[in-house]
């Protein structure tokens, strides 16, 4: 099968630059504004009962 690039930032050659541009609004946006948005979204996850959620995750061991 085809060898794919491991070194392209994010999307490899098959991924299509258009798609990443469409979802992030371009590289500049991704690196500056995007990071703030990301942290805002993370805040939303962490502020909804983070500690209770963690405590609920108890499962007998697997392998």
């Amino acid at each position, binding site marked *: 099968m085809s060898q794919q690039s491991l070194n392209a930032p994010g999307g490899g050659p098959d991924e299509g630059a258009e798609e990443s541009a469409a979802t*992030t609004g371009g590289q500049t946006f991704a690196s500056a504004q995007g990071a703030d948005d990301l*942290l805002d979204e993370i805040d939303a996850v962490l502020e909804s009962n983070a500690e209770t959620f963690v405590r609920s995750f108890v499962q007998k061991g697997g392998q």
Partner: protein
Amino acid sequence: MKRRVGGLETEFGLVCVRADGTRAMEPEAAARELFRPVVAMGRSSNVFLRNAARLYLDVGSHPEYATAECDDWWDLVAQDRAGERIFADLTAQANQRLAADGQDARIHLLKNNVDSQGNAFGSHENYLVDRRGEFTRLPRYLLPFLVTRQIITGAGGVVRSDDSAQFVFSRRSDHMWEAVSSATTRTRPIINTRDEPHGDPTRFRRLHVIVGDSTMSEVSTYLRFATTDLVLRAIESGRALPELTLHDDIAAIRSVSRDLTGRAPIPTAGGATTTAVEVQQRWLDLAAGTADETEQGVLETWQRAIDAVRTGDRSWAATHLDWAIKERLFTQVTERRGVDLSDPAIERLDLAYHDIDPGQSIFRNLQRRDLAPSTVAEERIEAARETAPTTTRAHLRGQVVTAAQQHGVDHVVDWTTLRLTRPGAMPVQVLDPFATSLPAVDALLEEIRSLGESSPPPVPPA
């Protein structure tokens, strides 16, 4: 072996919570709900899919997905990602049923390796090795590589003690108790010796590596297999190998996990010391001698990963390798919130990183922003949900399962056997993992088509 078959088994964590975060269902009940469409179709919670993978419920109510046999490590990554999507869809369906039923309950599937009480579960790599290759000699050379491999392919995480918390390459390192053994749960080893070749036992043996973390990054998953394959080939080549046997593998794996510089001394059996970076570099240099021209990319990426630890320059690693992506993320979030790594919010963040729901997963969120790699093309992942790898025995199993599902013919398959569940049906054995065509399988496919019912086939879960 120039061509090697490998496969990846992933056990998922499962938690079912109410909107307030409290537990809504026990794992057993949540797993039953999750597997409802699987059982409806396959009359079992242990089925093989059209892509020749195995989907089942393992010990401790851990949903598990085992990829089909792959001989190309990008195929393997695609098949692994396909499994995540299959389980993400089953999770979404289960959550829709629970919501329609008016229940305040939401199932999360986590592709990680430890719950909040320290119960561990695994990500198991399988590599086909030659039976004649003196299996007893293998661990001696492989162990130093596996003990230090976490600086490249660890998932990263936080280890907490009474009054402190620190970032580590791999939390799984603390759950390893032996170097080599036949146990899997009691005294979990780095290499498991259960001899299940899933093929002709006179020719093949399975190397079962259970030290790995479940990796979200496709680059991390790829490197686990591509580098281990190269190291195995170097060992098999018969050339002079580095004598890096460690004094205490288990003490070493824990200290390597905690040493983010990769340069702390590790005692060797010979009374000297080495370092994690040195062990990886020695193997990389040796593998360069056996790698072919199509594998130069593996060597380059492996070198970048070693350099990220050696130099402390994370700029490439922080968008490509799980541990470094997480290291940066956790640093940003602790700074922003004014907390340290022991804060429960960080443990919640770690779980959210590994959540396989595309809407909930922090990893997918990073991927959408090019802060984590999307190396395998979208179409290839989608194709892998329906299509087995074409260059191994998986191709045969995939064809039989697909035909049997399409024609509504009852069947039972496992890694080596294909059989229809009707009186007098003879099983077809495929003991060569490299076989991609077999007259007996052609005959079986013909039989399935001729038995095909006119009624519409059942809708499969994938």
